[in-house]
């Protein structure tokens, strides 16, 4: 199935270039390490063969769009916007919806090649002390080879990212062409942080502290997030300085709380931040709380409806008032 999709992707991209519909296509190429793919920028048809489709095409490619359409520093002269083709899984497409709503993307200049996503694997699901020297994917099974040439066979499902396991939007809500991928995988019940939520407040705090103490403020979570397109992140600002620059846990918490809260009503739960984190922080335990609350309190899901107002710019008379303390 994966191979067929890959072939189909190449066909579509070839057509797009032949018909001169795009200047650039953003997809995935083979990664340099086993179980990775790498974002890939195709500008001419000769390079189309570089494109791949496998269970590790996990990067949210929408992250590249704002910077193309909104280059920094701001150009004085009017720039000719490139026409971009982009491969979009459900979550990438939802990010694109968010970005269109937030005026970061010119819809007319984007050709969305949607793929009904089967969920993407996460290399980190394999223990770090296993050195993966090779891998092969076939018929929903993934065989990895360790440093001693030992083969380990895994079911594709075992490697799926947490966000993919719970994904409710495998089909891109917006697309110009859609590639089906056969059977729909049923989404697991929403769980990100649910177990966490059941813990006592002190346990939660301790776990939060423990996770956050790993953070080295490399900002990979921010940079990997398509929503974090701010020209100057609050975390970087000096006038006023919102956060101290240190790795003091309080500063780190402030950064994380601030960044995650800035995703309220915008986070599409693509897992990019979690995958990017070099320190293995399970940010989703925190990000998903806001995703869940947006749904539960305001019946709002980010990046699903293009026409819907922004969560934090609108209100309804029936908005719940439970956060109010009555004397």
């Amino acid at each position, binding site marked *: 199935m994966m191979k067929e999709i890959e072939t189909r992707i190449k066909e579509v991209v070839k057509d797009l270039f032949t018909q001169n519909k795009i200047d650039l296509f953003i997809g995935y190429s083979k990664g340099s390490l086993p179980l990775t793919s790498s974002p890939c920028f195709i500008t001419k048809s000769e390079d189309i063969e570089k494109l791949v489709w496998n269970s590790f095409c996990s990067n949210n490619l929408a992250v590249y769009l*704002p910077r193309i359409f*909104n280059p920094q*520093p*701001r150009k004085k002269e*009017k720039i000719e916007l490139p026409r971009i083709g982009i491969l979009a899984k459900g979550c990438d497409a939802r990010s694109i919806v968010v970005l269109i*709503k*937030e*005026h*970061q993307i010119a819809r007319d200049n984007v050709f969305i090649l949607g793929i009904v996503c089967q969920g993407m694997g996460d290399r980190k699901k394999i223990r770090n002390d296993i050195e993966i020297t090779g891998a092969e994917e076939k018929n929903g099974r993934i065989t990895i080879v360790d440093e001693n040439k030992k083969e380990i066979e895994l079911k594709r499902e075992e490697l799926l990212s947490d966000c993919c396991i719970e994904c409710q939007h495998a089909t891109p809500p917006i697309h110009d062409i859609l590639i089906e991928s056969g059977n729909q995988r049923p989404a697991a019940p929403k769980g990100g942080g649910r177990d966490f939520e059941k813990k006592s407040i002190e346990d939660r705090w301790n776990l939060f502290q423990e996770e956050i103490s790993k953070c080295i403020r490399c900002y990979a979570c921010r940079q990997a997030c398509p929503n974090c*397109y*701010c*020209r*100057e*992140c*609050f975390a970087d*600002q000096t*006038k*006023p300085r*919102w956060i101290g620059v240190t790795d003091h846990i309080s500063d780190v918490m402030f950064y994380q709380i601030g960044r995650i809260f*800035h995703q309220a009503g915008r986070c599409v739960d693509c897992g990019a931040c979690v995958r990017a984190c070099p320190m293995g922080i399970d940010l989703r335990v925190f990000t998903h709380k806001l995703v869940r609350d947006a749904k539960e309190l305001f019946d709002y899901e980010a990046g699903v409806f293009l026409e819907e*107002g*922004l969560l*934090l*710019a*609108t209100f309804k008379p029936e908005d719940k008032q439970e956060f109010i303390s009555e004397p």
Partner: protein
Amino acid sequence: MHKRVLVVGGGIAGIQASLDLAEMGVEVFLLEKGPSIGGRMAQLDKTFPTNDCAMCILSPKLVEAAAHPNIKIIANAELKSLDGEIPNFRAKILKKPRYIDEEKCTGCAICMSKCPVKIPDEYNKGLSKTKCMRIPFPQAVPALPIMDRESCIYHQRGKCRICEKFCEADAIDFDQKEESIDVEVGSVIFASGSEEFDAAIKDEYGYKTFPNVLTSIEFERILSASGPTEGHITRPSDGKEPRRIAFIQCVGSRDMQMGNEYCSSVCCMQAVKDSVIVKEHLPGVEATIFFMDIRAFGKDFDKFVNRAKDDYHTRFIRARISAVEIDPATENLIIQYNSEAGSLIEENFDLVVLSVGLLSTAGIRKMAARFDIEINACGFARTSSFTPMTASRPGIFIAGTFSGPKDIPETVMQASGAASAAASLLTELPIRELREELPQEFDLRGEQIRTGVFVCRCGINIAATVDVPGVVEYASALQGVVHSQEFIFACAQDSQKLIGEKIKELKLNRVIVSACTPRTHELLFQKTLSSSGLNPYLFEFVNIREQCSWVHQKEQEKATEKAKDLVRMAATKAGLLEPLSRMSLKVNKGALIIGGGVAGMVASLELSTQGYEVFLVEKESELGGNLRHVHYTLEGEKTDRFLKSLIAKVKKDDNIQLYIDSEIREIMGYVGNFHTKIGNGKQTTNNKPRELEHGVVIVATGGEEYQPSEYLYGRDERIITQRELEERLTKQQSAIDKLGSIVMIQCVGSRNGQYPYCSRVCCSQAIKNALKLKEINPEVNVYMLYRDIRTYGLKELYYKKAREKGVIFIRYEEGEEPQIEAQNSKSEQQASNGEVLVKAYDPILQRNLVINADLVVLSSAIRARKENKILSQMLKVPLNADGFFLEAHVKLRPVDFATDGIFVCGLAHYPKDVSETICQAKAASARAVTILRKDEIEAEGRVSQIRKERCSGCGLCIEICPYTAIELEEGERVAIVNEALCKGCGACAASCRSAAIDLKGFKDEQILAALSVV
């Protein structure tokens, strides 16, 4: 002499009229007989249908009136005589003594706290006590105490003078005498209001006899958080929370025995609102409203009633209550009533609220007579439908309930309308110029922070609790502070002078005053800064009275600590304050008025009279709008003649550029600077410019009659609408003569699931036409099938008249609408005399009726125009769920939009009759003139600003801004703030993730600085 107007009465009507006039450049004397302005609205808890807190929305208006340089409030005074004529009236005013020197008094209220004599508190309707020396209520304006001479011990027995002893301002004057003030004005507005019906007269309800029977105003006070029970709902007899509350409607209204035949218009909604609020306070309570008709005729009123029924489970019982009895053991109240089924039911209540009407008293009649103001049969000032704010005496105008019972928005509209009418008389006179020459501001560039801290003792108000010298000393060590000192009263004249001197002497570039509340005193100190050459925004106010000394009276040390903390926070913030300037904006003197119906024409003429150019755009080929289909009013006035003369006046007015057959293509810009493109309709109207520049927009696009799809309308010629009937009554009376029986069906297309609103005018229109039918042929049988008869106000008289003339009223319930069967329908057979069978269920007779009708007349709804949507998007102003334009505030800003410079009037706002339309049209022009008369408008100083380099143009701020003050600059994809429209709420700044937008005066770094030293 410049333009001057006297406004009699300081309720919301007088306040609104004064504010509008003042903004038009007219000097206003606002006369109030009580000690404070505010009127009845100040006593209300919440306002329907939005349940806004009345005081929250009123008190900014009180403060605004007090601070306006064009308004002089003369409270505790009466108008003694009024001689002369336009534009030279001479008014003699008698100002009663307050026994304080208003110049000296700082309003600190120490006298009130020390006064030993307690008297019933009028503000709380006598349900609680206040002092003989008292400020009437906390938000009172003027915020000065008044002494009740009758209960003052010194005045009665010659000793006490405690107040004098404690008054550090030396403001008590026991010997104060009445003062006579003469003013000369060009015209006068009477907004003197009405009185509440004295429920004690209707002794069958036991008011004043049974402790647990209250009037609606008393109940408002009980509901109010600032009332006698601090918002805890308890009943007077035992202080227990009531579980069952009855509201009895029409107490003193629609009551022939009492001689008050009219409807008081507001009591139904007040009772419904109270039933909702009481339920919010006490979830277990059961509220029952005994009513005759529920008159929810206003915008979104029916929705509110439905909410009360469905969500708050208010019981609505249609019954006239004849008496209230008491159970002496429990002091509960017993009410007997006839159910609709006819059985006698007795119920027991813990509390009974009498919805007392509004009425004119002998006193009001006498006053009217004294000033030559004619009154009508009900004792209210007489006005005509076409000049609804004009009194019989030339130069005198009426606003508010003096001309009949009305709700707040109608009052505000009439007040603004009266202001417009009054100002129109004075066009020849110059406006009052208020230009204060301010010194050049210091240049602060490169200057170090030099802060001066001034701490107020407020007599002993602050000093008795807070260690003021301690705070002064503490402040001196704070960063940037170069001077600190104390004052006995910081607000006193000499203190102001001293602050000014210190600014100059010590080159202070930041000033902190640590005293009372900025809400009343910030402007005063800012003015002192301005007049000393310091930008007024380099000022921080610390409130150590309301927040320290008054609320921590027994914890002096902690209160002092807190005061120091607050000063420290202010000093830290002050260091980051920046001088701000108010952007000024040229105002184009033209007005665009969209819609050439009566609303648009009246507004056009009003603006033209005041000297402004008007572009009146009508999409049809003739002027007149809906009034073309109305031929006479309920009161019998001929509308045709009025309309004809109105059109003639508009056509020959040189100031009015008329664009008929034209449509608006595009409106760009903002207050003072709109650019509009007009597209041609069918015919080209000469070669007038199609692109207009103007300063304001008035939306008067009207409404349209609903074309019923029910009741066989359009399928049988014997079924017509009221409008069609009126047409026939005027033009083909002969056809009417022959009819034997006519059935009118009310609420066609109104008050249903899809369109839950009441069309307001159809009951009156139906009664008007029924009376006409009876006039033409007294023998004709007229049946009116209705749900509630909503002849509010003085229209009620005609309802009575219709009953007297034999019109038969049969009620039907929602869901049990009448059924119609057309016999020998013309389309089927040629017979023209066939009858229409109307079947209805009569809930009183409790059986089905069949009426043979020759003609069925449908009172069809008034709908919002579909084009409203396009216009609303062009103007970026909202519509309500029913498609009518949604004003900025349903109570106090009924013709404004949240977006400055755009106004609404007429049916575009909501269904209304011609007199109300004219009121609103004049109100809209008054509001428009407040902008047009200025050459420049000054924007807020504390407005949002963009840091372009941080902005990604995500548009969140644009969506959030309620004033459409932010736009996306498409090319650079960056938000830009229109300072002219920004009101400085800061919602944009708080929402911007990259802090690319900030609010001047409340900048992130300023707030964070204060927060860093809490």
